[in-house]
């Protein structure tokens, strides 16, 4: 097969490319330049796609003896991921930009271009298993990235390969060290690549400016404080609310209403939800017949919760959680899994959360 290896400059994609070469494929490495104003050097363990990261990727490609190019996707990334991220927050929702990037950049813009240029598949260093069109969790539960891949369709998955899903991250680093890759001990990237300092609230404040509004206590309806913008909050958030309640019980963000810019907070007993309503789902294979039992994961690194999935009149899903959950924010993806301890939980599909309520009505 002619495969395109997306190489971020990190250890995972380096080893993924190496394994693709070992498997006998005709591999070409591509580094995606996603930021319009790239930094020369990485700052700490955060962020990616600095010039230094491109250099790291190129070093590995040169050692593997494969062609290597940099593709400039900054314009697409800005529109489809960064602007989307800002717009979602402005609308009171909590997006996952990694998932959006997989959906619209890596397995859309890049995959389309790769196919047009004669490649059969795109290889990435994601930690997830993919075989026979079935997407499953990585054997390394702590590094599993199936959540951010849950948005991919069968069609997208048919041209994807994730060689690392069957091994632990430690093993990935071992392989890199055995091969003498300089990135073997490179720190994992964390957080959001286009916010290298990790200050999401500051990033959004620069983009959206000050948008003051009230903080309202759900129990009393009283305004208990003021905030600089609803984008500084996410449902379920406990810290940094900037209000002191009358009692010592912790308060959580229960809801965000972007038009009136109201952030509603309340005590833990009000923060749990059990019914999640979503937008139209996407499926990794054939759509399962409704209703069905599954596990749902509501955010990256969240704990999966057993649930019952039914449809609603608007083409979305209604997901009834067996146990109440806190911090289910609109905009997040509800990724559905069929538990399979033996072969890895199977990703069925996902749907964006529209709303979540505490009643099972």
């Amino acid at each position, binding site marked *: 097969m002619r495969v395109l290896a997306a190489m971020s400059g990190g250890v995972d994609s380096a080893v993924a490319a190496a394994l693709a070469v070992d498997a006998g494929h005709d591999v*070409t490495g591509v*580094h995606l*330049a996603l930021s319009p104003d*790239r930094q020369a050097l990485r700052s700490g363990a955060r962020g990616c796609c600095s*010039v230094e990261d*491109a250099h790291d990727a*190129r070093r590995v490609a040169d050692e593997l*003896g494969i*062609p290597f*190019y*940099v*593709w*400039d*996707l900054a*314009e*697409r990334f800005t*529109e489809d991921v960064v602007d989307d991220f800002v717009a979602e927050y402005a609308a009171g929702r909590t997006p996952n930009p990694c998932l959006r990037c997989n959906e619209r950049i890596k397995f859309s*813009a890049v995959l389309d*271009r790769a196919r*047009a*240029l*004669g490649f059969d598949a795109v290889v990435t260093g994601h930690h997830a298993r993919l075989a026979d069109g079935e997407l499953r969790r990585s054997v390394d539960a702590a590094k599993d990235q199936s959540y951010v891949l849950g948005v991919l369709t069968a069609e997208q998955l048919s041209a994807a390969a994730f060689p690392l899903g069957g091994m632990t991250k430690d093993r990935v680093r071992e392989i890199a060290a055995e091969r003498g890759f300089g990135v073997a001990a490179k720190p994992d990237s964390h957080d959001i690549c286009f916010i290298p300092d990790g200050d999401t609230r500051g990033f959004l404040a620069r983009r959206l400016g000050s948008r003051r509004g009230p903080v309202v206590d759900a129990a009393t309806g009283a305004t208990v404080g003021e905030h600089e913008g609803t984008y500084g909050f996410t449902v379920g958030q406990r810290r940094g609310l900037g209000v002191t309640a009358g009692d010592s019980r912790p308060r959580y963000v229960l809801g965000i209403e972007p038009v009136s810019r109201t952030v509603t907070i309340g005590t833990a007993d009000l923060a749990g939800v059990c019914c999640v309503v979503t937008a139209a789902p996407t499926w990794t294979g054939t759509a399962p017949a409704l209703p069905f039992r599954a596990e749902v994961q509501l955010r990256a690194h969240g704990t999966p919760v057993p649930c019952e999935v039914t449809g609603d009149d608007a083409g979305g899903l209604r997901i009834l959680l067996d146990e109440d959950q806190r911090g289910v924010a609109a905009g997040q993806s509800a990724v559905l899994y069929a538990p399979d301890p033996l072969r890895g939980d199977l990703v069925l599909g996902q749907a964006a959360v529209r709303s979540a309520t505490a009643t099972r009505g």
Partner: protein
Amino acid sequence: MTYSDPVYLDHAATTPMLPEVLAAMTGQLGRVGNASSLHASGRAARRAAEQARERLAEALGARPSEVLFTGGGTESDNLAVKGLFWARRAADSRRRRIVVSPAEHHAVLDSVEWLAKHEGAEVTWLPVEPSGRVTPAALAEALGDGSDVAVASVMWANNEIGAVSDVAALAAVAHDVGVPFHTDAVQAVGQVLVDFGASGVDALTMTGHKLGGPMGAGVLLLRRDAECTPLLHGGGQERDVRSGTLDVAAIVGLAVAAAAAVDGRVERAAELARLRDRLVAGVVAQVPDAQLNGPALDDVVRSGPGRLPGNAHLSFPGAEGDALLMLLDAKGIECSTGSACSAGVARPSHVLLAVGADPERARSSLRFSLGHTSTDADVDALLAVIAPVVERARRAGTGRR
């Protein structure tokens, strides 16, 4: 990879070293001696370096004392632009203006922009003809009475689209108003007639590795009466304008390469032009909407070629230069999109934008450059694959909305 010998059509980036250069350099590399030392080993090194200087001066119509060895074209451009600017401004603080073409190599452009940002320089950008050429009339108008101009710089031949300017006429215009004139002749030497003395320019940049010499060795030809403030301070080895221990082996190689390039220029230029014309005609026959950038193939300036004989620069509407390059590379054919930043991200060529091309056209371009090892078989190899490559790249689109 399935191919063993790539088809190399990127001689403007760098060209294979000549066997006689390799021999001359290896002869030197095993010897000890700092050309500044006073003992016998030093004298031997000095002798080799000075012979090279004389040989190079003769090849380029300069006096040996006008040859300053540098670390390459980029250093020579930096030294000329910054050094002439500083010296001229020091002599008269009103001289803060730099008159320069926007189609220059980045070594000139970025030096100028640095001076504007840090040294209070004002930049007057010269208008560039659609061919890529700067006319004497345009330079004269930009210079005005010249009293506030520190330096003017226009390249002898453009590295991307091959446009040759009438440098002697430009230098004369600058001198009419008392302004020193620098030219980057990195691509011109060995392809067109470059005679430093006859051209009248004050400073000329050239480099070895475009001629079959080593990388990291270049020259700034600087007239004896030109005041130039140093960039590198130290031992003052090169006329007190450039410091650093002379790299004798590289200098010897550079001189051998320059002499060979100049001696064989007429025959080689004719052969390169023949191959280049075949290449362009063959590509256009298969991809009829391909567009040639730069001067016409038979263009003439000052009774010599108006376009570098080894240069073909073509746009393929609807295809991305990046994609074309990758597909050709996969078939063992090596060329260039002309302009890449340090991270390897393709940008629309500033040269094409300067000559009035729209960004789409600029992004859809490839440069094929021929050199001393080029053959008909190289052209045949390109012509055997160009049509399907362009078709596939067009299917991949431009990646933009």
